[in-house]
């Protein structure tokens, strides 16, 4: 599929997600009016609230109005407190994005060397350690890992803060300290996934004929590794790109545990408050990030394997 086709299919996907999302959010049984106005709200109060917020309009009208606003960059106003949603997403999105990017970089920085080492020294002590890391990574839930890290590194050792997000403007090191444990928590699961994928993919590549030929020709081990790695990384890129998208979901738990006021935590709050427009806006942003990660993966796939572009 061409670049244009790929982008068009992503746009169609975004529209489909918006329809499904809108339908699901409006299928939630309790009216936002009841949540905002409290249990003693009269029928008149609820009707007035619905009218003021356009919730009494037909669903199709509400949907087109919402999408129209989004196309103009207007996310609407919160049903909870009538403040604009756009600035709130703009304030919280960079926090979540930074957490995900750091988690992603951490996962890559640990997983790829670990996977390479495991593949090169199969069944050695390093391979066993990598396998252990992978088992722990996929078995330990993020919230539990987060609490353990807080217990060890914040409470017992006092090296790092137990939670909270320190802004860059408050100092580089304090900011990085505040992000260290959340980064490890959000990325640890993907260390397991990506390292295993790297190991198996590189293991297969190292068994290929061209590697044997290269060895017979007397090429150096590191040179051979570069050739093999280029081929082995193709499936790893796909998994890594998918991981980047999924990390926005993990951020929801990690932001809750580490008390980080990011976009994922705002989503959780909005769900409990039945703040329809807020939920829709945030989920659509996350969907867009997921699609962007996939498009990027496609691009990298073609860079690593030029035959696909031919």
């Amino acid at each position, binding site marked *: 599929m061409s670049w244009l086709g790929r982008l068009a299919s992503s746009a169609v996907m975004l529209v489909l997600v918006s329809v499904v999302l809108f339908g699901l959010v409006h299928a939630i049984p*309790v009216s936002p009016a009841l949540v905002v106005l409290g*249990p003693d709200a009269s029928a008149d109060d609820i009707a007035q609230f619905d009218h003021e917020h356009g919730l009494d309009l037909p669903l199709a009208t509400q949907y087109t109005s919402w999408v129209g606003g989004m196309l103009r960059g207007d996310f609407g106003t919160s049903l909870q407190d009538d403040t604009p949603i756009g600035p709130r997403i703009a304030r919280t999105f960079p926090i979540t994005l930074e957490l995900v990017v750091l988690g992603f970089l951490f996962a890559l920085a640990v997983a790829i060397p670990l996977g390479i080492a495991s593949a090169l020294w199969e069944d050695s002590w390093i391979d066993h350690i990598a396998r252990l890391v992978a088992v722990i990574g996929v078995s330990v839930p993020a919230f539990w890992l987060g609490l353990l890290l807080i217990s060890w590194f*914040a409470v017992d050792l006092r090296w790092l803060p*137990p*939670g909270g997000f320190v802004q860059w403007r408050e100092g580089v*090191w*304090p900011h990085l300290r505040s992000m260290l444990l959340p980064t490890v928590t959000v990325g640890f699961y993907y260390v397991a996934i990506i390292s295993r994928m790297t190991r198996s993919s590189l293991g297969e590549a190292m068994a290929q004929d061209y590697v044997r030929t290269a060895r017979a020709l007397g090429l150096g081990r590191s040179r051979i590794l570069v050739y093999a790695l280029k081929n082995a990384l193709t499936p790893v890129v796909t998994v890594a790109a998918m991981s980047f998208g999924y990390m926005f979901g993990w951020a929801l738990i990690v932001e809750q545990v580490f008390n980080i*006021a990011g976009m994922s*935590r705002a989503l959780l709050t909005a769900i*409990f408050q039945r703040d329809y427009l807020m939920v829709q806006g945030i989920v659509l942003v996350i969907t867009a990030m997921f699609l962007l990660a996939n498009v990027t993966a496609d691009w990298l796939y073609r860079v690593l394997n030029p035959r696909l572009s031919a």
Partner: protein
Amino acid sequence: MSILRRSLLAAGGASLGLHLLRPDLAVAADRTLMIALPNNPTTMDPLQNSNHDGMAISNAIFENLLEVDLDGNVVPSLACALPTISDDQLTMIFDLRDDVQFQNGAKFSAEDVKYSYDYMLDSKNRSIRRYIFDRIDSISVESPTQVVFHLKAPFRPFLQYQTKFMGIFPKGSREQHGDAYFANTPIGVGTGPGIFVDWTPNDQMEIKRNPTYWRKGVPVWDRVIAKIVPEESVRVAYLSTGQAQIISAPPPHQLAELAKTPGVTVGRKTALGGLWFMQTNNLRKPFDDVNFRKAVSCAIDRKKLAEDVFYGTISPSAVPAAREAPWFNAEAEATISYDLDRAKAYLAKSKYPTGAEFSLQVPNPPYLIDTRDAAVVIQSMLAAIGIKMNIRSQEMPQVLASMTAGNHVATLLPLMAPSDPTFHVQICYLPDQQQSKSSNYSNPVLTNAVAESYRHTEMKDLLPIYHKIQAILAEDCPHVWLGYVVVANAWREEVKNFAVNTGLTIWTRDVALG
């Protein structure tokens, strides 16, 4: 010269380094009180705030004519003294302080009180607290320092309800700023010790010291920052590491361990208005039979729940009165408290002698206290007499919607209220009240007894009425009462002048940092 330049460079470098590494030390040292709360409020507006945790901040911004002290006593605040009440109990005259000004510099007067109450009572403004003040007929201003409340009927609890559920703001401020301003950035519109600075939803709320506060000598802090930390273990970590100096709602199972931690104090106090109960719909099977309701009440071992599930953070009681309260009727409580043989006898007398099945709604995520484990234990206790209880986890809005509409069968829920003995009785068992349909119960004798209680203010007159109310309710058993919430806070040794508030909310005004 070169030495001076070198010194300046060294100082600059040290300052930069300090800023990079520990900016908290680089800023001017101030007295900041850090507290950690479990819940994220949705508003700062005293007319709409139902979040008892968030009131730690909003109650430091807004004040009322009276307040309830840490021991639950009603004491004057913006009023000079408790009101003069007419013989027919229909008029309350408040003399106001003359030395109070709002945080925006405007002088506080009786006009502001009338304006604030009139605004709250106007149904157009949709205050969630309107229903508990609906016995106010009108308010008149006699002078800048005297305001008179005219009531439709005698209403003693009015005095208790003032502190948490209402605040005074300047005349004309709603038209000037709009309701959203009060909800999100109420700067300058209160008379309290704290001036609103910032609120980042899901993160933190911040107030600073009001330098013109009318009470002399307080507050002694410069700022209060309330961090929103939903995970209870993380709140404890905040306390352990000094990132918070006071935490609300520490995990019950860690209270004993926390109390032994050097430098940490744990305090508990029963909230006399924090009722935990099973709300049962008397129109729905099997709760349409009083003997069945009594069988359920007698089958639940509240002491075991309090000790083994809540680690002492519930004070067991089978009637809607805490056993620590002076108005607790032990005799009435004994008739429906835990006794398995009596439970079986009541069940045998009921329309469901071989047992029955029902669904219990449990809020998930929890509201105020986590009752999910308790629901499982209650399930096993009821199974012992042949009653099958199915547990349904529901989100709080759904729970409230089905209760207030009267659609539910049974709901396990805590409700936090002022310490007044009749608040829950009023809203749950009197006709046309907020939660009347949760039980669909009414009894004219009870209604009259509650109305009679509103005519008196002296405990010697009130005590027999309170006992009568509990006896009536124990006899009819419209709900299954389980106990009262024990409020717990933990704080570090540098915190002085702090005590647990019976009303759940952390009270920051008088706190000092040692």
